[in-house]
């Protein structure tokens, strides 16, 4: 009983780590491709099978990149705090990997694939640590450690740019943790569970994904994920034009690679969470229906289809992350903070209140209106979204002209307006 379970867990962990490392390497290639395509270039297309002339559209590039990072001179500057300097990339990398313990990458395999004598009757859940009831809290607790990697790295580097990058990053990550939490709270409140598998199966059962029921929560969560992953337009931790390399300016070789891989893992985590919490996880209408009372008894075809659907959603989110990088300019730091505190948190709260009211009175409201409850909730959600957006537009908290020269002008001066 214990041996097969241990084997199963180890196998899943090996699969996850190998898959994630490969994925991170290939996402670097994808990022470079998209960067190139958006700029009307071709991108890396030379490296193929090593030691041959076969090119394969440049699919060998990640191998070359990895080997390059491994063999690069690893320079430790003399002025750093050695212990913390080494600890920082390891902590951010370990935290980024650990999150995946509770993130499902499919639903479950069909039952009874092992001989009955092994004593494994339960279907194998496609998550490294199945059945954790506080999955969401675990994700948050471990995900927050990323802030340490960044702040410690910036501090230990003993360099102005690194320090500024670390500081900015610390403030940014902590500020956006709040809207991230508020976005999740809406989902948790509606589904009544912190378990990611349960949240998915509830969306699958009702067929209404959370992004249709709580569009405002979806928006808040998505924007906060961009900020948490440190992606443009929120990439202030490492704004190259201002901070050289930000918190990892002083890092090189394998330690730099750990930072960069951790950044990609954050993006993958964020995409997984968006797909699972708001886009229905592995569910797609009419494609992934299982049997049994809870709809989780699956055949091989359905099991594989569910994995494909989930990974397709994650992939779509990652592509969106990458295209966004080339679409919008970086926010100024005060604008970043304004968006976080004055727009995202109120939006998150509004969504949370709406969901709370709905959970308490929803059925009665829908009944009195004579509409299906889910349709009613979706309509409510979109009304809240439009209202929230309208209020934020009207109040416009991000437009604060804090340029000092404005105060120098005497009030009676004539100021011309530029004609548009």
């Amino acid at each position, binding site marked *: 009983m214990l041996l097969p379970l241990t084997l199963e867990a180890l196998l899943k962990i090996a699969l996850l780590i190998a898959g994630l490392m490969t994925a991170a390497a290939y996402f670097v290639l994808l990022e470079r491709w998209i960067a190139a395509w*958006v700029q*009307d*270039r071709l991108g890396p297309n030379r490296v193929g099978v090593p030691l041959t002339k076969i090119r394969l559209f440049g699919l060998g590039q990640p191998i070359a990149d990895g080997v390059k990072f491994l063999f690069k001179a690893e320079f430790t500057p003399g002025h750093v705090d050695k212990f913390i300097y080494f600890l920082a990339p390891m902590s951010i990398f370990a935290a980024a990997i650990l999150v995946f313990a509770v993130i499902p990458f499919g639903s479950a395999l069909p039952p009874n694939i092992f001989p009955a004598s092994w004593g494994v009757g339960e279907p194998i859940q496609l998550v490294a640590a199945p059945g954790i009831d506080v999955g969401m809290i675990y994700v948050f607790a471990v995900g927050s450690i990323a802030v340490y990697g960044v702040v410690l790295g910036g501090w230990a580097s003993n360099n102005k740019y690194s320090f500024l990058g670390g500081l900015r990053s610390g403030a940014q990550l902590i500020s956006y943790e709040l809207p991230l939490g508020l976005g999740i709270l809406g989902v948790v409140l509606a589904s009544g569970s912190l378990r990611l598998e349960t949240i998915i199966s509830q969306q699958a059962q009702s067929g209404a994904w959370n992004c249709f029921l709580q569009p405002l929560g979806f928006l808040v969560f998505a924007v906060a994920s961009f900020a948490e992953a440190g992606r443009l337009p929120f990439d202030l931790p490492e704004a190259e034009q201002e901070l050289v390399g930000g918190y990892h300016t002083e890092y090189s070789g394998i330690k730099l690679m750990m930072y960069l891989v951790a950044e990609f893992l954050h993006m993958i985590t964020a995409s997984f969470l968006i797909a699972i919490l708001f886009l229905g996880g592995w569910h797609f209408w009419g494609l992934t229906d299982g049997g049994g009372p809870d709809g989780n008894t699956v055949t091989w075809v359905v099991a594989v289809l569910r994995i494909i659907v989930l990974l397709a959603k994650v992939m779509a989110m990652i592509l969106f992350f990458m295209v966004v990088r*080339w679409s919008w300019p970086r926010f100024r730091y005060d604008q970043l903070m304004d968006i976080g505190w004055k727009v995202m948190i109120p939006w998150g709260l509004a969504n949370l209140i709406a969901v709370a009211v709905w959970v308490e009175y929803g059925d009665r409201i829908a009944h009195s209106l004579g509409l299906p409850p889910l349709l009613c909730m979706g309509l409510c959600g979109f009304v809240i979204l439009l209202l929230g957006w309208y209020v934020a537009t009207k109040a*416009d908290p991000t437009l604060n002209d804090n340029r000092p020269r404005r105060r120098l*002008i005497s009030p009676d001066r004539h100021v011309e307006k530029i004609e548009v």
Partner: protein
Amino acid sequence: MNANDKRIRWVKEPALGMAGKSYLLLFVQGLATTLKHLVSRKKTVQSPEERHEIPDPIIYRGVHRLNRDEQGRVKCVACFLCATACPAHCIDIVAAESPWPDREKYPQSFTIDELRCIYCGLCEEACPVDAIELTSLYDLSGKSREEMIFDKQKLLSIYDQTKDAEPTRTERLKGEGGGGKAE
């Protein structure tokens, strides 16, 4: 200057409308531009399999060549105008008495440091006999700095290499029927 000086024109940028403030329109515009470029035709020239198309090799400023006259002799008369015009001081000429009756001097040695050269084309402009010209060859490389100092032999061989593809200025002007017409 005082901020309240009457001569200063203070201008105020136009206020954002609702569409601008809501960020939605700009959001969609930005994404649309990116997506348009994502699928558009790529401009990369895949060197070395593909080569850049050089519209007019006569105008292009690549590696130098030393032209020969009809009898295959070096055209240069060692007047030092190119070396004088050169802002990078990369041309070194040693003049000697000419063995031929039609000119007084000829270059005994003529070297150009291709690594110092900034490819400005002033030598070409300065030359009174159209002896030095810039070709359209742009990808020159060498294994050492010494290898990149081109001597007279090398510069003449570049002429031999490129004379068919790129006629000299004299030939071009002749072809246009202008002869001695000034540019």
